[in-house]
C-alpha cells in the first residue's frame, strides 16, 4: 500500500500547538499561528502536585492538560472536531487508512517512551505527545512531528506501540482532525482571543487551592527552600533537575511557555489594535520567562554539584516567589482590559 498526502510539515515549539496549527492550515484556516493556538487554547498554566511522583521526581507542569489546547482552539473558532479512541489496532488502522485515502492528514496522541527517533535521554513514560500521520509507504508511516525539524517515519509496529502506550493518559489509539469549514473571519479570531485570555486569567489567578496557578509558583518556591533539609542534597538536586526538565523540555519554546505566551499577546494586539496594554503585558511575560531561565541556571548549579548550601536553595526559592508576583500582576492587568473600547 502506498499513499501520500500533499502535506506541508511545519516545525513548532510545542507538539499540540503545532498539530493544531498545521491541521487547521490544512483545511484552509491559515491565520492560526502556534502562539495564537496556544493562547486561544489558554495553554499557560502552573501546577505542582507534591504527592504525585513522575519518574520518581515531583509532578510539575507549566501548561494546561493535554488535549485541551486543540479542543478549546477549535471550539472557539467554531470548527467541528472528529476524535476517536479505539479498542484495537486493527479497527483504528481501518479508520486511519480510510482517512489517508481521502487525503485527510490525521492527528494522533502517542506515548513518548517508544518513539524511536527521540534520543534515549528524552524518553519517559509521557503519553500525551502529538504528531500528524500523513501517509504510508510500504511498512512505513509518514510522520510530521511538529517538534522535529524535518518529517520522519515510523514502522507500523513502532506506530502501534506508541499509539497504544499504557499508563496515565493512555492514548488508546486516539486519532483526531478538524472538519472542513468555511472562511474564519477576523471577528471570530478577535472573540476567540478574548475568551482564551479570560479563561487563562481564571486558571492562573482564581483556581482554588495552593498548588496551582500563580499561587502554586510561590508555594513551590517555599517548598524548594526546604528540599535540602528534607530530601538531602542529592535527591533535592534530582528534584530540581526534574523541574528544569519540565520547564525547558523540548516543546516549551523556552522559559516554561512564558515566551510563547508573550508572542501570543503581541499577535493579539494585531487583532485588537486599540489595546496598547497587550504589548506592555507581553513584556512582563518576557521578564517572567527570563527569570524562569535564570532560576534554571541556579538549579543547574545545584544538580551539577557546583553549589550546595542552604542559601543556594533560598536563592532558587526566591526566584519562584518573584516570578509568582510578576505573573500575578501580568494576569491582573489582563483581567482589567476593557475589550469593548
Amino acid at each position: 500500500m502506498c499513499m501520500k498526502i500533499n502535506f506541508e510539515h511545519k516545525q513548532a515549539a510545542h507538539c499540540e500547538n503545532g498539530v493544531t496549527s498545521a491541521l487547521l492550515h490544512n483545511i484552509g484556516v491559515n491565520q492560526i499561528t502556534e502562539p495564537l493556538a496556544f493562547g486561544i487554547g489558554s495553554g499557560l498554566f502552573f501546577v505542582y502536585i507534591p504527592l504525585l511522583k513522575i519518574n520518581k521526581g515531583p509532578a510539575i507542569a507549566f501548561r494546561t492538560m493535554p488535549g485541551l489546547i486543540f479542543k478549546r482552539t477549535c471550539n472557539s473558532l467554531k470548527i467541528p472536531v472528529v476524535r476517536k479512541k479505539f479498542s484495537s489496532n486493527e479497527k483504528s488502522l481501518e479508520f486511519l487508512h480510510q482517512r489517508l485515502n481521502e487525503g485527510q492528514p490525521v492527528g494522533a496522541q502517542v506515548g513518548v517512551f517508544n518513539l524511536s527517533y527521540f534520543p534515549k535521554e528524552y524518553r519517559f513514560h509521557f503519553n500525551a505527545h502529538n504528531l500528524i500521520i500523513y501517509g504510508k509507504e510500504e511498512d512505513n508511516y509518514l510522520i510530521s512531528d511538529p517538534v522535529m525539524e524535518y518529517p520522519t517515519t515510523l514502522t507500523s509496529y513502532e506506530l502501534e506501540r506508541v499509539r497504544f502506550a499504557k499508563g496515565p493518559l493512555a492514548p488508546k489509539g486516539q486519532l483526531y482532525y478538524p472538519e472542513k469549514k468555511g472562511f474564519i473571519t477576523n471577528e471570530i479570531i478577535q472573540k476567540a482571543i478574548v475568551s482564551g485570555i479570560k479563561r487563562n486569567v481564571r486558571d492562573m489567578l482564581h483556581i482554588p487551592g495552593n498548588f496551582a496557578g500563580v499561587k502554586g509558583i510561590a508555594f513551590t518556591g517555599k517548598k524548594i527552600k526546604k528540599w535540602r533539609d528534607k530530601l538531602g542534597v542529592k535527591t533535592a538536586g534530582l528534584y530540581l533537575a526534574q523541574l528544569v526538565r519540565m520547564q525547558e523540555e523540548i516543546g516549551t519554546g523556552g522559559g516554561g511557555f512564558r515566551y510563547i505566551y508573550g508572542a501570543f499577546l503581541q499577535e493579539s494586539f494585531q487583532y485588537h489594535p486599540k489595546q496598547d496594554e497587550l504589548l506592555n503585558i507581553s513584556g512582563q511575560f518576557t521578564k517572567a520567562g527570563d527569570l524562569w531561565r535564570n532560576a534554571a541556571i541556579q538549579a543547574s548549579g545545584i544538580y551539577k554539584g557546583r553549589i550546595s548550601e542552604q542559601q543556594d536553595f533560598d536563592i532558587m526559592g526566591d526566584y519562584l516567589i518573584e516570578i509568582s508576583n510578576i505573573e500575578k500582576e501580568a494576569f491582573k492587568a489582563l483581567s482589567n482590559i476593557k475589550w469593548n473600547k
Partner: protein
Amino acid sequence: MTKEEVPQDNSSLSNISREVSYATDKDGKYTTALSKGWDVKSSALDLVWKETIEKAAECRQKVLNNQASPLLFFMEIKMMDISLLSSYTGFWKWRIKRHLIPSVFNKLSQKKLQRYADAFNVTIADLKSMNVHED
C-alpha cells in the same frame, strides 16, 4: 530572551533535530529561532538518565545474586513501576510481585515470558540474560 541569547550548546538532540525557541528581536518583537540545545537542560536530562543507569546496575547485581528476577532490572532501565508493567502485560500487580522472585520467574511458561518480553521490547533470551540494546 533575545534572539542572540538563544543557546547553541551541543546536546544529544543536536544530531537529530534543532528545536524552536521563542525570542525577541532588537525592537522587542517576538520571533522564532532554532536552538541546538542548552547545557542547563541537557545536564538535567543526563543526570536523570545517569541515575537510571546506576540504579539499573544495582538491580542487575541483585539479580546476579539471586535476590530478584530479571524483571527488577528491566523495570528500572525501562522506567516502569509495577502498575505500568501491569497495564502493559495484563498481569495483576500481585502476580508481578511474585514473578519478581527468582524461583517463581524461572518456572514461567514461554507464553508468560513473552508478555514480559513484549512489554520491555526485547526477546525472551535477552529478558533472561538482561541484555538491552540501547541505541
